[in-house]
């Protein structure tokens, strides 16, 4: 994950977010970007608190869903974080 595995990830400040039954909508009023995260992606976003790395997040989710292959979890987390980093919503 390009070194992201060990870097602490943080949600960028200044973003607007609203919680819904089907996930989270995040809006950046400066870049005018908006994204809808399903509940799992929203949980990954929520774990980007500056004290967890991507691998930390992978391990938390893998523990919560032991029936899912660890590499699948790692890929899914990578995809979510990659998308959030591309929009500048997550830094680190």
């Amino acid at each position, binding site marked *: 994950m390009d070194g992201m595995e060990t870097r602490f990830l943080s949600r960028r400040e200044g973003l*607007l977010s*609203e919680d*819904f*039954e*089907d*996930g*989270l*909508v995040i*809006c950046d*009023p400066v870049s*005018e*970007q*908006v*994204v*809808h995260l399903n509940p799992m992606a929203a949980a990954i976003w929520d774990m980007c608190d500056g004290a967890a790395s991507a691998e930390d997040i992978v391990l938390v989710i893998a523990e919560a869903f032991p029936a899912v292959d660890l590499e699948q979890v790692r890929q899914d987390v990578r995809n979510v974080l990659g998308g959030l980093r591309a929009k500048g919503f997550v830094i680190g």
Partner: protein
Amino acid sequence: MRTEAPAISLDSLDAFTLSYAAYLRAFLPSRSGQAAPVVARAGQEGLAGQDMEGAIAMAEMDVLAAWHRELQQDFTLIHGSCIVSQEGQVVLIPGVTGSGKTCLSLALVQRGYRFLTDDCTAIDPATGRIWPVPAATHLKGERPAALDLDRVMWRLLSYPSAYQVPNARCAFVRSEHIPIPGESFLPGMLLFPAVRGAVEPEGLGARASASQDGAMWAPLPPGQAAYQLTFHNLADGNTTIARDFRVISNLARRAPAYRLLAADLETACQVVGSLAAGIPARAGQ
């Protein structure tokens, strides 16, 4: 006693801009006593009849644009049509240009719905209530056979040839189809029309329903509805999204949302009627 909106004059360009601004302003009591921002076009008095019609049609867009700029200071603006059924169910139809929201809303007006707005829905951020902006509709392209404009409109104006939009008309809705000034409404339902080709039936998902006439519709969860509204709001150049995001989100939470894919206008109207019938009329409407 019904309070009628000011009449719109087509006698001259200045008479039109003044009366049209006053007409729009009358539907928002908070602004009815304020001076209207009138967009004047100098040197166009005395035009021949055909030029006057085109000039008024163009001036209508200028007045409306000025009104939108003023409204945006205090209201959250959603790009979409809004109508209310005879039973009081308010249907907001967000959508980009070409998505069919104008034809659908006018077809429903033809069937007894009242016309609140065609292009811009104004929501009070403090109350979540919708205030009418019953401006002229801007019709483009071929009209569906099911749409009888003479029943819905009191005047259609042609744009100047320089406007270069095929079959374009500036059309004013008859007053009997418009609420009385001072009425505001609570949103009941969000309906996102889907254009065939842009969205195929499979795209509506596993929860989609279908009618015998080929219409398909599916509930849209509130988060996805909020995302769609926000995305298009930003695409329209919203400069107050920091205020409006919360309003849009609350709208998506309160009003059930659906995506609709219909083969024709008649079928779409039937589906809307069925969906709207499931919405209770809101107290204090």
